[in-house]
């Protein structure tokens, strides 16, 4: 294994810090993504620099709450400037972010250079972070030695969790429909600045330990992944938190393991966490329940298979019908004859089906074997014919088809030669209630526009 160098006392804390950071970022990130402000994490993480410089100028030290407060203040100023540019000057949101954060960053660099002669305020540290060093800087709390980063990130997560839980309604409403919120007296501005202040606090709390790359990644990537998995905001919050935690764990593991495959030493955890989050996004994008490519593909395939099976059943049903009407004593007209009467048996071969339905021979055979397995079709001599269950399903399909044809001619004034393909497409998605409305909307005739009998609805079968 590549995890030889794993030391719980160190790596355990790193993991805890990483998970705390990832989850607190992703909680707020959901709202950033839904509000179309995903890049704010990036903007804020660059724009805190002047705040750090000012705090250092004043306090002369690198650590402490002063630094934290100043950075958060700089972030709030940034958000305010971005909003003001957007609202009052009509600058596009992306552009206003770009203008403000680059200018703030430049200002910060210049200020730092002025004071940096006698201090190591390393902009590197802000960008990449040094989560590997978190276990080294510890506080003693109730007899426990806990890394400082874990404490601050824990508090941050608590704050964010409380904020999202307490203001869930308001966040949802102002994000979805800010005009309605304002008209109801729920100020979207207040909620916006509340959210932004917490984004700033989270970003600043995370920088020192994990770096801004990770802040941006965790604010955007897990929420975007969650969007692939669910279509509820509450679900999205849960998914994003879970996926973020997963990315954190995978990231730290892979930072140790992956380079060893190439015979190299471990790399930076923060970078690998972002990469892991990207990998998770790809997986969600493939198999996600909502927008996943594979899911969509499977759904399409399943529907195509259903259509093919429906076609086969409908064909067999019509074959039986024709046989019945050709027989001198029709069973269908009385309606009392048991449907499995021998005269209606009318098998069709796979070749016959494939030529008539425009399916390839292997496809028809595959469909048939599937239907046989489900007991809707049974082999009969050289061909196949419907079972009772199959006949019931086929009857409903044909009923839907013919009702649609009748409806299109009667209600929508369609030409009779154009109705078949419409009905053919819609019969697969027509359910009982729709058939009922169709029946009600059309005249109470038993014949479709082509003169074929419209079969009756099948009674629910209760064995």
């Amino acid at each position, binding site marked *: 294994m590549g995890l030889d160098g794993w030391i719980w006392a160190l790596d355990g804390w790193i993991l805890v810090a990483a998970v705390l950071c990832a989850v607190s970022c992703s909680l707020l990130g959901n709202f950033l993504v839904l509000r179309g402000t995903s890049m704010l994490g990036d903007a804020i993480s660059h724009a805190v620099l002047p705040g750090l410089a000012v705090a250092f100028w004043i306090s002369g030290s690198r650590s402490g709450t002063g630094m934290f407060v100043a950075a958060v203040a700089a972030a709030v100023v940034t958000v305010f400037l971005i909003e003001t540019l957007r609202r*009052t000057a009509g600058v596009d949101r992306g552009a206003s972010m770009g203008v403000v954060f680059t200018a703030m960053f430049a200002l910060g660099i210049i200020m730092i250079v002025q004071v940096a002669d006698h201090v190591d305020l390393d902009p590197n540290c802000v960008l990449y972070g040094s989560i590997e060093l978190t276990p080294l800087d510890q506080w003693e709390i109730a007899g426990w030695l806990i890394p400082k980063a874990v404490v601050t990130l824990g508090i941050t997560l608590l704050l964010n969790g409380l904020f999202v839980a307490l203001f869930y309604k308001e966040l949802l409403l102002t994000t979805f429909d800010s005009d309605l919120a304002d008209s109801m007296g729920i100020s979207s501005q207040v909620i916006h600045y509340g959210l932004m202040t917490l984004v700033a606090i989270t970003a600043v709390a995370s920088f020192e330990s994990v770096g801004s790359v990770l802040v941006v990644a965790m604010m955007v990537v897990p929420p975007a992944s969650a969007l692939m998995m669910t279509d509820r905001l509450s679900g999205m919050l849960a998914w994003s938190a879970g996926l973020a935690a997963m990315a954190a764990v995978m990231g730290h593991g892979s930072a140790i393991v992956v380079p060893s495959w190439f015979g190299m030493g471990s790399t930076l955890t923060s970078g690998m966490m972002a990469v892991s989050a990207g990998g998770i996004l790809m997986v969600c994008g493939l198999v996600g329940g909502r927008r996943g490519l594979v899911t969509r593909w499977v759904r399409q395939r399943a529907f195509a298979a259903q259509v093919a099976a429906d076609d086969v059943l409908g064909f067999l049903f019509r074959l039986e019908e024709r046989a019945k009407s050709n027989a001198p004593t029709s069973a269908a007209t009385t309606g009392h004859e048991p449907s499995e009467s021998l005269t209606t048996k009318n098998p069709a071969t796979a070749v016959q089906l494939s030529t008539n339905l425009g399916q390839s021979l292997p496809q028809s055979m595959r469909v048939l074997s599937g239907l046989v397995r489900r007991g809707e079709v049974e082999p009969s001599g050289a061909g196949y014919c419907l079972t009772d269950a199959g006949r019931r399903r086929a009857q409903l399909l044909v009923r839907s088809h013919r009702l649609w044809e009748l409806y299109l001619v009667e209600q929508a004034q369609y030409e009779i030669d154009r109705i078949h393909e419409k009905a053919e497409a819609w019969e697969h998605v027509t359910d009982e209630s729709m058939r009922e409305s169709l029946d009600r909307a059309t005249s109470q005739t038993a014949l479709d526009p082509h003169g074929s009998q419209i079969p009756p609805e099948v009674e629910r079968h209760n064995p």
Partner: protein
Amino acid sequence: MIGPSVAWVATETSEAWLVALWRLLTLADYNSRVVILGTALLGCAAGVVGSFTLLRKRALVGDAISHAMLPGLGIAFLVATLSGGDGRSLPILLTGATISGLIGAAAILGLRSTWRLSEDAAFGIVLSVFFGAGVALLGVIQSLEAGHAAGLEGFIYGKTASLSWTDLMSIVSAAAVALLMCAMYFKELALLCFDQAYAESQGYSKWWLDGLLMSLVVGVAITGMQAVGLILVIALLIIPAAAARFWTHRLSRQVVISAGIGMAGCFGGGMASALLPNLPAGAVIILACAILFLFSLMFGSSQGMVWRAIRRWQWQQIMLRQHLLRAVYERAETKISAPEIAGESEVRIDIADLMISRSWSKPLLERLVDNAQREGLVTRIGSQVALSRSGWIQAKRLTHQHRLWEMYLITHADVALQQVDRLADDIEHVLEPSIIHELEQLVQGRTVEVAKSPHQLPEPN
């Protein structure tokens, strides 16, 4: 041109400093010449390309793409080093960065179209994941051979102050190519920014056009990044273009102005950092651009905030004065039978009467009357006001115009009259003479019957 003033100041202050300034302004110094020319050219190219991305509502694409180049750098370095070559060979690094930048651009377009993710989310994803990969790769490289990768750091922060002749040449060629492409495909890019659906309906492939624009961004970013650093490139791609929006509504002018602002910012910033000690050139250039942006924001001829505020204030004043004059005139009209005859200015109106004619507050009305009196439009006699001679003429014209407008809106109610400032634009300048004649007839007809203001319903009692 500035020679005499230099000579004059030289007597007063430090001569050495001025000599430095003089040498700088004339670009006599080789190093500052390279730096200033290089960054200015870059600013020009970035300003042009940035205009298109801004109008395409993708201002931050430069941010995402330039971050996406980092893993390419790392991989190129690793591959070159491990295969025994020189990891810091510029062509190899640039090739790697370009490829990963292009992959990043493709990823943005792919995320958008495949998963219906919003633009900003796609930017955020590409930026953070690619940059994360880059950071991880740099970590590996650093552990591989400490110090060896130091050169790569320069790509993030740039080395503006120490641009070499080769850097300048690569900037010149990249800027030339970018400008040439923008000129060649100007109308296609304009169409893409203005109306993508229409462009597609005209047979242009969205992918091709977006790809072209993204490639231009990659081109500018790759040249700029190794010369001046990542953040400066992002700033140059956004700030000049955003500033130019305050000066014009026309795309062709926007592009030119944006290029100009980019150049000016780089020029000014480069000068300042060369003159003042201990100022990193890249950061100073960004600040110079930001100052130009601020100036444009305030004083830009088309959208500048100051002009807008002044215009709005003036408009408000005109509107209020017109309200007052019209109210007085309309009251006066009801008092005398034939307002056209002389002596009309003697008609006195109670301020209390005016009070109920509009929803204005007492202090506001008082203030308006005072202002109008100062302008010689009305005279105030106790609790009454009367229009002066010039006030009467003005009020009469206003009221007439107003009624024509109203009549127009009513008789042509199927057309919304947009973009007309009815306070300032005379109706004669907006509408056809024949229509005005028709309206005059209608207004006259009404006057004889009953109405002055045809919109009003009978007041309930």
